[in-house]
Each structure stands twice: as structure tokens, then as C-alpha cells.
């Protein structure tokens, strides 16, 4: 019997598929100049409300600042807020981007046809993330420069290598979460509500604008199982208080553990959701 296959699958072909998806994402990104403009605008605007709130709370003469300083370990509330908000913004943008990746394909009616391609389906999800990671690193660099320019906050100080290590460790957690999220959106369809829920959990518990010490104990327990809590705390410690590797080692260990668990969780969620969607025939429905 003659057995015919349409393509010869290999590691090389998977890699090409992955890069093709990354390239497609890059072309789409360049196609909408307003997205690039947003990269320059939001790092400055996003923390603005919190910074002016903190300014108002500290009082015209700064009389309430010592109370904050006692809890936060720094009186630099501008730096404190921008670190929290920039890392949260990264997560938020990832949820929208990665979360809506498959959903957008579903809405456009191209998901089913892409699914028929003779490549691992995870490549269809992971490929665009390569582009997203590159654009996000660009975003973080722009943000750091703008903070210096507009708020006088110098983030790229202290141990830069240690800062990069924290970023390197938090990337798998953020994108693993994004993958899990993107898969669940395929299942539950109401993507907006899901973004609001997930980003809201991080917003409420991770100490984006406040020191964790003001949280009640039960909220602090939840904060401790979220990787972003450690990333925010450590970037603040290194960039604003010159913490060393030894000072933040316990947090780095936890971040490393999250870096292993979260992508695995993302993959498992994707695997089961995709299988269920195929069985129920819901892949093309929206």
C-alpha cells in the first residue's frame, strides 16, 4: 500500500513553523502604528494617577510620608509606584496579547484552518510569543528611560545583572500564565471578563502601589503564591534599596520554581482545553 504524507515533519520544520508564526505576529504589530505609539505613552500615563494620589496622601508638607516610609522601607513613593505599575502593565499586556491570540483567530475564522496545519499546535500558540517577548523587552527599556526623563526615577542602577536575572526568571511565569489564560479563553469565550478577573487578582494582591505590610494576613497569604509579588518586591529592593543577591536569594528561588511550574501549567491547560474543544466541535464557534 502506498502511504503518502503531505509534508516531511522534523524538528527543523517545527522550528520554521514557530518562526513563521513569530514573523506573522511581527508583521501585524508593524501594521498598526498606534500600537507602537501606545508603547511610548502608557509607561508615563499608567502610574500617573497613583503617583499624584500618593503625592496628595503625603500632604502639602509631606507630613504623612514618614508613615509610608516606615512600611515601605523607602520614602521614594514615585519609584515604588513605577516599579509595581510597570511589571503589572507587562502582565496586563501579555494577558491581552497572548490571551486573545487564539481567540482572535477564532473570531476571524482562521483557527480551524491553522489547526489543520501539520505542526504541533503548541507552536501556533508559542510562536507569536517570541515576538511578544521581544516587543515587551523594548517596552520595558522605553519605560525605564521615560521614568528617568519624566519622574526622575533611575531604575537601571544598583546591580543591573541582578535586575536582569529577576526579569529572566519572571518571563516564563508571565508567559506560562498567558498560555493557560489564552487556552481558557477558547473554552469560555468571554475574554474581556477573564482578563478583568486575572489581572484584577494580580492588581489587588501583588502590592503594585502599596507595601504588602498593609494587607490583612489572609490577603498576604494569597500574595505569596503569585510570582509577580516576588518580582515587584525584588526589583524594588535592587533598584531602589541596593539589595544584593544574598538579600533576595529566597525570593529568587521561588521565582525559579514558578518559572518551572507556570509554563508546564500553561501547556497542560492548553492541551486539555484544545482536546476538549476538538471533541465538542467548539473550536470554530464564537
Amino acid at each position, binding site marked *: 500500500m502506498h502511504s503518502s504524507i503531505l509534508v516531511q515533519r522534523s524538528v527543523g520544520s517545527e522550528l520554521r513553523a514557530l518562526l513563521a508564526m513569530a514573523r506573522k505576529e511581527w508583521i501585524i504589530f508593524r501594521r498598526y502604528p498606534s500600537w507602537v505609539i501606545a508603547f511610548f505613552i502608557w509607561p508615563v500615563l499608567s502610574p500617573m494617577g497613583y503617583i499624584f494620589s500618593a503625592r496628595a*496622601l503625603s500632604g502639602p508638607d509631606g*507630613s504623612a510620608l514618614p508613615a509610608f516610609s516606615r512600611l515601605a522601607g523607602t520614602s521614594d513613593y514615585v519609584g515604588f509606584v513605577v516599579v509595581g505599575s510597570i511589571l503589572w502593565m507587562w502582565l496586563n499586556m501579555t494577558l491581552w496579547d497572548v490571551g486573545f491570540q487564539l481567540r482572535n483567530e477564532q473570531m476571524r475564522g482562521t483557527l480551524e484552518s491553522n489547526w489543520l496545519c501539520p505542526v504541533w499546535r503548541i507552536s501556533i500558540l508559542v510562536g507569536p510569543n517570541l515576538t511578544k517577548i521581544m516587543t515587551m523587552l523594548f517596552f520595558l527599556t522605553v519605560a525605564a528611560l521615560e521614568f528617568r526623563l519624566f519622574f526622575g526615577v533611575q531604575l537601571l542602577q544598583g546591580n543591573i545583572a541582578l535586575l536582569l536575572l529577576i526579569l529572566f526568571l519572571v518571563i516564563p511565569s508571565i508567559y506560562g500564565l498567558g498560555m493557560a489564560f489564552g487556552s481558557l479563553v477558547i473554552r469560555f469565550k468571554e475574554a474581556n471578563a477573564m482578563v478583568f478577573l486575572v489581572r484584577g487578582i494580580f*492588581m489587588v494582591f501583588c502590592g503594585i502601589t*502599596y*507595601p504588602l505590610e*498593609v494587607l490583612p494576613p489572609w490577603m498576604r497569604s494569597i500574595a505569596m503564591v503569585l510570582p509577580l509579588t516576588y518580582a515587584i518586591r525584588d526589583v524594588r529592593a535592587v533598584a531602589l534599596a541596593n539589595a544584593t543577591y544574598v538579600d533576595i536569594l529566597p525570593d529568587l528561588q521561588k521565582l525559579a520554581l514558578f518559572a518551572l511550574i507556570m509554563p508546564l501549567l500553561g501547556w497542560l491547560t492548553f492541551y486539555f482545553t484544545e482536546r476538549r474543544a476538538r471533541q465538542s466541535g467548539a473550536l470554530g464557534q464564537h
Partner: protein
Amino acid sequence: MMNKNQLSEMSWRSHIWAILAIARKDWLYFFRYPLNALFRIVEPIIWLTPVYFLGQSFATAAGNTGFAAYAGTLDYMSFVLLGAVISSYVSAVFWGMGFSLKEEMDAGVLESNWLAPIPRPLFLVGRTLASLAITTINNAGMLFLAWLLFDFRVSGNLLAAIAILLPMLAALYGFGFAFAALVLSMREANTLVDVSNYLVSQMSGSQFPVQALPPFLLPLSLALPLTYGYDAVRGYLLNTRTLLPIQLEIVILVAFMGVMIPLGYGIFRIIERRCKALGTIGLH
């Protein structure tokens, strides 16, 4: 003798039916996605929780004394919550009204709706009604949750505060007419809407007393009529120290309404005619 046919008998009654039908359609659409509807109530609380804890981290034994030196009240959270209520209307105008025609354009129904025998501004009046109703329900839910979680309470004159809100809302939705037409002509306007909505809310003092703004931003804030709306509502409900005497702030809001309604309507008519002439109504 020529037979004069018309598809419908146009009257003020048919206009009201059309407005109610449009509002009902938006209402149905909103509740068709129950999770999204629920999150419209929960989401402001999620946004406000970090603000609440930020307030806690600056609190001294006597409360938020630093804040009180600016605002004239120690009740920081109620100050922020009232700001959130007004901001939700601002946001409804920017996102809901701004994108109302664009959504229909994307869905491919704008051209066919445009052929209906009703004046076109009525499409936006119908959507305004639905938007006001939905936003008000959301706000009621949000304030109830805030009462449970943050001990929100008001001590001032609620009726007076609502009376101030009315001209402000009329002005806002008048502006919404112009903005909807602008988005229709621009087509890709997400960043513009997002940034404008955020800046207008923040600069008007939705989260903080505008006196805390740096000197170079304060004139910008004082030039926005909305600033006086936020300020007067808080003045009535929380007895805060207002920027101007409240009567003067009300005059500013009424003048704002007097300008924005005809201006919004006029801009809408101009852009609508332009889109028709260029034939871009069906494009997106």
C-alpha cells in the same frame, strides 16, 4: 394624480419608539454576556482596592491627615469612590458612545441602519439612554460593594449632588455625539480613546484633589469643566473644601452643557455628511 407612498409614518411617537428600540437592543446585548456585565460592577472595586491600600500606607494614627490638608476631609476612600462614579460616566461616553457607530460599522449594519426612516442623531440618543441606565445600575452595584468592603458613606445632600450631575451628564453625552462621529471618521481610534479617557479623568481629579498636581499641570486641570463637576459633587456629599464657591461651579457646568450639546450635535452632522459624501460609512 400621483400616488404618494411612504414606508412609515414619521411622527414624534415613531421617534420615541425608535429610541426605545435602540436602547432595548443595547440593553439586551449588554446582558447577553453576563460575565462581562458582572465585571462591570466588580472591576471598579478591583481598581480601587490598590488605591485603598495606598491610602492605608500613608495613614497616621489620626487617619489620612496629609490628604485632609488638601481636600478638607479625612475620608479618602469616599472621595475616591465618588470620583469613580463620575469617571464611569466619562468612560461610558468615551468608550460606549465613542465607539457606538464604529461597532455598527464593524458589524456591517451601519449602512442598513442609516437607511431607517428616522433622524440619524436619534441612533445616538437611544444609545445614550441605554448607556446612562446601564452605567447607573453598575454604579449602584459598585457603591453597594464599596459600602460592604470600604465602609463607604455620604453625609451631605444627595439630591443636590444629583442635580449637579445632570447638567454635567448632558454636557458629557453632548460631547459623546461629536466623539462618536470623530471615531467614525478615524476608524482606528483605540489609542486615542483610551488615552483621552484616562487623561480627562485623571486631570479632572477623579482619584486625588487636583491641588496636588504639579504647578505646570494645574492650569490644565482647572481649564476642564469636569474638574468642577467632581469638585461640586464631593463638596455636597462629603463637605470637602471646594476649588470655587459651589454656586459658581454649577454655573460653569450649566454653561458647559449649553455649549456641548449644540456643538456635539453640529459636529456629528458635519462628519456624518462628510462620511456620506466620501462613501466611507461601509468601510472599516
